[in-house]
Structures are given as structure tokens and as C-alpha cells.
């Protein structure tokens, strides 16, 4: 969690100057000096998960460019009642989380408030998708004992949601719920083509 917030602060600086503009965009790359982590040793369901898995908490390439980063914009006022910039389409109100090879895919995503989350499993072992807010309150915890099963739940109004699996403790995922979801792009090699969109308030 601490890592995620730290990355958010990096991105905040990039967009602050756009507060007075009607529209704008930010293009950039998140880099870090942090090193990648050692693989996670798997002790459960090795037939499905493998003997070890890469620790995806920090994913960087050879140039230090970071994947799975979320940038939070502050001090930007809304344009219209929907909180959208000109020319922006509302983000999908539905998203997907897949339990695959004992990892959440995608590991990080940004969705709009109250989006429906379709969680599914491709693994023939019991997974759970346990979604908790930062204060520890559980939004939902669904069992996915059968490969191919899909369960749909609402993600709630706002906040950073942590995903865990109660049968595979190393599994982590993040869903950032914000009105700013529209236009935010997350690439596997840093953030590019990121649109600066209004939050729900001046904060």
C-alpha cells in the first residue's frame, strides 16, 4: 500500500499546472530507483501456480520504468456534472478481475465509482476475491472454486480497494475507484497518454 501511495505522489506533480486549463493531457513515464523483488515461493497448489511466482509489487524494466502505477491529480475542478473533460467518454462501468495462475490480472486498475466488477477464475483451484478498503472494511469476498465461474459485484463509491485471495496469501491486486478513471491509461511499462481529468471536488 505504501508503495502505491508513493507512486501517486510522483504523478501529482506532473498535472498540477493544468488546474486552470479547460482541458489538457499529461504524457510521461513513472520511473523508480527501486529494485525488483525476489520471486515468491509457492507452497500451495504448485501444479497450478508453479514452484515460484514473480513478486509483482514492483515491476520495472531495465531503464527503471515502473508498471502498474496510478497517478492521482489534485486541485483540478470539474468541467461538467459528469466530471468529464471535453471529448472524453465516460469510463466503462464494468471491469474484470481474473484469477489466473494464482495472480490477479490486471494487478492494478482504475474504475469509476460503483462500477460492476466481474471476477472470474481460470484456475482449477479455490480462489477467493476479497475486496477491502484501506480502513479494513470488506466490500465483498467471493469464492471462486470452479474455473470459468464469473461473479459480479459492485466496487463501491470511492477509495483504494485492495484485493487478496484467502487461499493464496501472496496474491495482491488493487482497484482505485475514482471519478478520474476516465481516460487514465495504465501501461505495462509506465504511464503514457494520461488525461488530466477533474476529481469530484477541489481535493
Amino acid at each position, binding site marked *: 500500500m505504501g508503495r502505491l501511495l508513493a507512486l501517486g505522489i510522483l504523478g501529482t506533480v506532473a498535472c498540477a499546472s493544468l488546474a486552470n486549463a479547460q482541458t489538457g493531457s499529461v504524457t510521461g513515464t513513472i520511473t523508480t530507483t527501486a529494485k525488483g523483488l525476489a520471486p515468491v515461493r509457492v*507452497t*500451495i497448489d504448485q*501444479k*497450478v501456480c508453479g514452484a515460484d511466482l514473480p513478486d509483482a509489487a514492483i515491476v520495472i524494466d531495465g531503464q527503471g520504468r515502473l508498471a502498474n502505477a496510478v497517478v492521482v491529480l489534485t486541485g483540478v475542478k470539474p468541467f461538467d456534472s459528469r466530471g468529464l473533460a471535453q471529448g472524453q467518454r465516460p469510463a466503462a462501468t464494468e471491469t474484470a478481475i481474473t484469477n489466473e495462475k494464482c495472480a490477479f490480472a490486471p494487478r492494478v486498475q482504475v474504475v469509476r465509482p460503483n462500477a460492476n466488477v466481474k471476477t472470474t477464475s481460470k*484456475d*482449477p*483451484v*479455490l480462489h*477467493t*476475491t*476479497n475486496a*477491502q478498503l484501506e480502513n*479494513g472494511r*470488506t466490500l*465483498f*469476498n*467471493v*469464492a*471462486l*472454486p*470452479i*474455473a470459468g*465461474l464469473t*461473479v459480479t459485484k459492485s466496487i463501491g463509491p470511492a477509495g483504494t480497494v485492495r484485493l487478496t485471495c*484467502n*487461499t*493464496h*496469501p501472496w496474491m495482491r491486486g488493487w482497484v482505485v475507484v475514482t471519478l478520474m478513471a476516465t481516460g487514465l491509461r495504465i501501461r505495462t511499462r509506465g504511464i503514457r497518454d494520461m488525461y488530466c481529468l477533474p476529481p469530484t471536488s477541489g481535493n
Partner: protein
Amino acid sequence: MTALTFGAQELAQPTTIPEMWGAWCARCHADDGSGKVEEPTITVEPMDFTDCKVTTPEPDADWERAIAKGGPGVGLSPEMPGFEDSLSAAQISAFVLHMRGFCKETGWPSGNNNFPRPIITEKAFPENEFLLLPVVSHEAEPGSASATDVSLNVVYERRFGRRAMYEVGIPFYNWDFQTARDTEIGDVSVAIKYAAYASTTTPRIVSFGLEATLPTGELYKGFGKGTVVFEPYVAAGAMLGDWYIQAQGKVELPADSLIDREYLYNAYVGRDTSAAPTTWTLGLELNGENRDLWITPQVRKGLTGTGALAASLGVSIPVKYRGEKVVSWVGYLLWEFLEPLRARR
């Protein structure tokens, strides 16, 4: 089991309830239901399903809700996921039956006979409970000052063996004697109860009990009877559809032969408004003592997610001899002290 190819491996897929238990539930609850696994993947210690005194008092409906909704559905840990989207109602019921099998001892009465406690009618199912039972009566006769009497019965109930329970009750009175209020202890009671019959297939239970009140209360102020009173009783319960039916018959046999016997009879009908442990339960009692009769509408509410704390409030209205009898507010605050009040973190 059926086989499923996964990558280069072939994995056996569970098809029966025991196989599903082994593949899914045993991760946390262990193959034998003890909750003791070598490498736990959750932070809370699961309930020990082999411990009959912990698991048997809960009705199937609560276990089914825990499986369907997950731990939060019954006020327990959110680390228990919900299976309502992956299992049918019949499969969930079958899991409960399988889980019941981890208790290897016979003779424990089924929790399906454990109905919500009425305020006055004695419950047939033995319990581990601590109770506060207040009664407030207000009398206002024309031409005289009004009087409000308050009493509080403090009751401790504890199970022993598989079907028995003992109970100790200490009543406190605070009565208005016009010139002054007086607070005293009444007749202390001790009791035992035994569930003689408890069906394992349909919710039906019959218990026998014997209560003895000791002459610890002041006779001349009305706080006691001045003699030991033996009170054998029978209590029964059943379900008709979604309705709880409970009844009790009791006779008071004073050791002093100059004091008249009294006959008490109580009947209760009620139903829950939802399946959650925090549900409201609406009920109605008829309470008779010799030729007197009261009707007691009441409402009960689970106060915590597990239902380990609950409260009830009712009003006891005289049906006969209304000019002589008063209306009383009655209720209880109940704590099932062996159950968790909330989820452990």
C-alpha cells in the same frame, strides 16, 4: 472426481461434497473440521467443528447463511468467502450436513430446535446465557397517588452434559410504597432443565425442568413467598412453517402446605423478519396464572452480527380482571457468553 487438464498437469476436480470439502474448505477448516492446518493462509483461527458444544447449538439456517454469504453474513470473519454464487442451495445444505458430521458424539440436541427466547415462556433448548429481565409496572388508581414498581431478575444459565442446564436467578425489587421506595432482593431461584426429546429431522423439542425458589425475599412486603417453592415444569417448542411455537406449563408447589398451589401456563408464537442474526423477531405470548391471563406482544432484536447479544421488549396486558391488574413493560437483555460478540481480526 473428474479430471481436468491444466497445462501439462491433470487435476482432479471434486464432484462430491466430501471431495469439495477436501479441495476447498479443508484449506482453512482442515480435513477433519478442526480448523487446525499445517500452513494457515488466513489470520483468524477457524471454529473447531469437532467441538460439539460449540457447533450443535446453532441452527442449520445460520451455517447455511455463513456458507452462502461468507463470515460477515453471520457477524464472523470476512476471511470466510461467500459461496452463494458458486454453490446451489442444495449443495450448501449438503455442506452443512457434512460439517455436522465432524461432531462425533451422539445425544447433543440439534440447533434446529434452538428458537429465539420469549420474554416469559421458558425456552426448551438448554443455553449458556446471562440475562437481565426487567419489569416496570405503573399503577394509577383514581383518587390515589400513582406508583411505579420496578424489578430486575438477573439470571445465569449454564449447560452441563449434552442436554442439561442449570440456572440461578436473583430478583431485585424497587417498589413504591407511597411513603417511600424500597429496594430488596426477592426469592432466589435455582433450577435444572433437561432436553428429554429433541428431533433431528424436524424442529421439535420437549424439556423437563425443576425450579426451586428459596425464601430469601421479605414475605410481608411482597418480595417473597416465605417458604421454599418447588416448581416442576415442562417446556416445548416446534416450528410450523416459518413460525416458532413455544409453550410451558408449570405448577408451583410450596413446601408450606398453608400456601396455595399455583398453576402457570405460557404460550408463544413468533417469527423472524429475516434470516440474519440481527433480525427483528415479532412475537406474541399468552401468560396464564391460575385464572388470570395476560397477553404480551413483543419484539426481539439481535444486537450484534453474531446474535450473541440480543434484546427484547414487550408489554404485558391483563386480559381478565383488568380493574385489578396492571399493565407491565417487560423485556430482556441477553448475552450468549460462549459465542463471539463479533468477528475476530
